[in-house]
């Protein structure tokens, strides 16, 4: 038998790694694997160029200190940890902040059209949770530009031939094979519980196929669709994470869901208006008169209440997102402020120089103009908070190196609790603790990929057997099981199958949005958990809405699989939120807020400075906890200089 480290088996098959998900995290992982000589199969629900990373607008953080303000990676590291309310493990966050300047330089070399200074250097702007200009940007479509750059580099590898161990090219074998419009259906675990491959489905014709991989990575994004309408793309159901969770992977900090303060209310989705709008000088305000229904542009300066600026004179409109969202929510829902009589506040750029704003923010202001039909350069925008990002995700390990950051090329880094299965990007929980700072997500996705690729190589090198050396019965059995499950979905017609799955998803989203986001109450969460049991029972009665058989694309049938995943993750999120008896970052219970209730606990480091771990069982998720690595930075109060204004 050929040595397992050889690229090709004796029968001529190429040993590959598998990456599921083609956003920034997945693509960066692919690039690192290819550079290490490991051929890859890449799977994605959509052509990878359409992945959700495309939606990121504002920019990517890197402490390059172009403006001579004295910024440094160490400050970035500290502010990331503080922004996350000290819940993030510190070594991975340190590694990320230190790698950030190199990552932005790499993207620059790939041709990302970043905005420039007059000298031709990269330009940087302000973002939340820092006072430094730390965010590199390409207009206001930075995620799109970054995704395209990595997509192009991966396409380059698609044209490269695989070479065997003697450097001879293998005809017809390319370094990257893309499987676009394919959906993850199952993981294939061997008898020892190690992940050896996947079963995936071609969505164009429903055929199921097993793929063997010497390491498998899920870079499948967050579960935003659990909340119905959010800033997320329609593909962000969290289905792959739910499949891994049910196969035994631990899910960490599920209750930490970021609500972005500024989005456009809508019926199909809540479109993001980037934090960069405030970074470039945009201001949040409401009319002082709570009954004032006039258009924003007609309300005189003296009659406006800039509540974030008054409450936070130092950070002003750029406090971290969890804080800004709570303040907006409170102003509208509890204090009765409104914008044009609607449940919204104004986000205003009308005082800024139109040409300058256009160069830096066109992509995002264009979204407002196209979808609302109002010119944001002359009329203050109406916005409200929306679910945006999951800090929680699949639990992944890390190994701390001698410098306090991640040990290079350790197979433990980014590895889930299922051996051989890795996770990266928004799908993992690793970098942001209880709240993510703006412009840290593009960074964590790319840094995660840079760590995951080498970790997968190290894992593969340390394994005695390759997936291709295992009996084919292992893969055939799982494919058959999944085929049976798919066939069973095809029989859900007539009789008891009366529930429309899209309608059930609508109710799930409405409930989660209302009861499990900005403000959480134990009584509500108990109701959510009870209703989820009912919904799971209803799911069993969900009808197959399209009878089309094999060989024909069938989105409603595939949606049933994704809906099952969303119900699973909703329970993980709600259970984690119910259990955590403190206020930390995005997880906030008014009953525990010392500002509202004297003697309330607030953030509770004694009992709750720990990572939530959810594990699947047949009775639903079970929770346990593990300590956070706080070996590098001392705990501190998370203070953004709030002053009491006596208003409201």
């Amino acid at each position, binding site marked *: 038998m050929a040595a397992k480290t050889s690229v090709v088996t004796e029968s001529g098959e190429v040993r590959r790694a598998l990456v599921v998900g083609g956003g920034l995290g997945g693509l960066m992982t692919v*690039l690192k694997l290819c*550079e290490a000589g490991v051929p890859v199969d890449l799977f994605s629900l*959509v*052509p990878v*160029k*359409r*992945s*959700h990373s*495309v*939606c990121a607008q504002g920019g990517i953080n890197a402490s390059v200190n172009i403006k001579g303000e004295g910024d440094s990676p160490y400050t970035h590291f500290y502010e990331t940890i503080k922004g996350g309310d000290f819940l993030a493990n510190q070594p991975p966050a340190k590694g990320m902040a230190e790698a950030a300047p190199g990552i932005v*330089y*790499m993207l*620059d*070399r*790939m*041709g990302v*059209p*970043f*905005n*420039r200074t007059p000298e*031709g*250097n990269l330009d940087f702007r302000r973002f939340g949770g820092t006072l430094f200009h730390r965010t590199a940007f*390409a*207009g206001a*479509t930075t995620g*799109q*530009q970054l995704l*395209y750059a990595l997509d*192009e*580099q991966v*396409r*380059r590898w698609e044209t490269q031939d695989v070479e065997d161990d003697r450097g001879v090219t293998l005809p017809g074998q390319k370094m990257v094979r893309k499987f676009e419009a394919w959906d993850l259906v199952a993981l294939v675990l061997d008898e020892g519980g190690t992940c050896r491959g996947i079963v995936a489905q071609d969505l*164009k014709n429903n055929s199921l196929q097993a793929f063997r991989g010497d390491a498998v990575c899920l870079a499948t994004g967050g579960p935003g669709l659990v909340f119905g309408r959010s800033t997320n*793309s*329609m*593909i962000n159901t969290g289905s792959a994470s739910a499949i891994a969770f049910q196969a035994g992977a631990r899910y960490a900090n599920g209750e930490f869901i970021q609500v972005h303060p500024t989005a456009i209310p809508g*019926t*199909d*989705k809540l*479109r993001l208006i980037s934090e960069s709008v405030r970074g470039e000088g945009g201001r949040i305000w409401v009319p002082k008169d709570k009954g004032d229904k006039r258009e924003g542009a007609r309300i005189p300066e003296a009659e406006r209440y800039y509540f974030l600026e008054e409450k936070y004179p130092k950070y002003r409109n750029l406090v971290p997102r969890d804080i800004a969202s709570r303040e907006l929510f409170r102003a509208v829902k509890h204090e009765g402020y409104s914008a044009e009589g609607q449940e919204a506040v104004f986000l205003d750029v009308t005082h800024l120089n139109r040409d300058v704003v256009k160069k830096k923010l066109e*992509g995002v202001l264009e*979204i407002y103009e*196209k*979808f*609302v*039909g109002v010119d944001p350069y002359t009329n203050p925008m109406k916005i409200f908070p929306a679910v945006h990002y999951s800090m929680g995700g699949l639990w992944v390990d890390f190994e701390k190196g001698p410098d306090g950051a991640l040990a290079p090329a350790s197979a433990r880094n980014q590895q889930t609790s299922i051996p051989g299965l890795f996770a990266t990007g928004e799908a993992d929980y690793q970098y942001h603790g209880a709240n993510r700072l703006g412009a840290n997500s593009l960074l964590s996705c790319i840094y995660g990929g*840079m760590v995951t690729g080498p970790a997968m190589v190290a894992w593969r090198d340390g394994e005695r057997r390759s997936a291709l050396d295992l009996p084919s019965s292992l893969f055939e059995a799982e494919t058959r099981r999944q085929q049976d499950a798919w066939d069973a979905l095809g029989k859900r017609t007539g009789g008891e199958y009366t529930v*429309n799955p*899209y*309608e059930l998803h*609508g109710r799930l989203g409405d409930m989660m949005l209302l009861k499990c986001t900005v403000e959480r109450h134990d009584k509500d969460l108990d109701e959510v958990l009870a209703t989820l049991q009912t919904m799971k029972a209803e799911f069993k009665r969900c009808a197959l*809405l*399209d*009878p*089309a058989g094999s060989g*024909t*694309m*069938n*989105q*409603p049938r595939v949606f049933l699989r994704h809906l099952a995943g969303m119900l699973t993750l909703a329970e993980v999120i709600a259970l984690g939120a119910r259990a955590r008896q403190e206020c930390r970052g995005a997880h906030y219970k008014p009953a525990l807020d010392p500002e509202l209730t004297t003697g309330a606990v607030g953030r509770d480091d004694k009992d709750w400075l720990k990572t939530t771990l959810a594990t699947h069982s047949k009775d639903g998720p079970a929770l346990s906890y593990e300590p956070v690595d706080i070996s590098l930075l001392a705990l501190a109060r998370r203070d953004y200089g709030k002053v009491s204004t006596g208003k409201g």
Partner: protein
Amino acid sequence: MGLDTVTLKIRRGEGPGPSRWETFKVPRRPMMNVVSCLLEVQKNPVTADGKASTPVQWDCSCLEEVCGACTMVINGRVRQSCSALVKDLSPEGQTVVLEPMSKFPRVRDLVVDRQRMFDALRKTRAWVEIDGTHQLGPGPRVSQEDQEVMYPLSRCMTCGCCVEACPNYNDRSAFLGPQVISLARLYNMHPSGSMQASQRLDALMGVGGIADCGKAQNCAEVCPKAIPLTESIAVLGRETLKRALFGWLLKG
């Protein structure tokens, strides 16, 4: 005439098989777009004349016109269905007509397979060659002026609007399309991308290259990101001509 509903007439079908038209009526709401209408059909897949049907299938993802997925032909014009607002399409209750793009193989209903566009990106080497993703210091400096030309070119979503509107792009021609010509211009402008400019020009001088453009100029008119496609074609037209005339002098 009540404006409490939206009427959708949709061309449906499987693969290359025959098409059929189906009409749906969905509740009308403020700020509604075509995607929201199709989401309503999913929740109640019953035609306007009361027959039980199936949810209409279409591609969509970002819903904010940056991913390009939800492109289709709406009232005869190719565009993204997320940014197609009902109040503009049907101000007085007119029927909204939805069809799949015609230049690509249909998968089902409004879903088409645009693989040909991605293949064209491979053929034209639409990327900047880098030595690796390891640390090699900052990239080359770029002037603000150049960045302002390059950024709009870089917003191409590979959505297919330009080729749908192009009379020279069809299943009988090998034309790569305006979008790749514009991207070749982008990479040829980049200081290190320009080092492989001749390879991209050669690709565009071959089969399906720039000579296949009939200068109809429909592409720039339908581009949702207002990318100056005809300007790019003119720029690369000059560059390929230069290379055709003098390129042999430069070859070793």
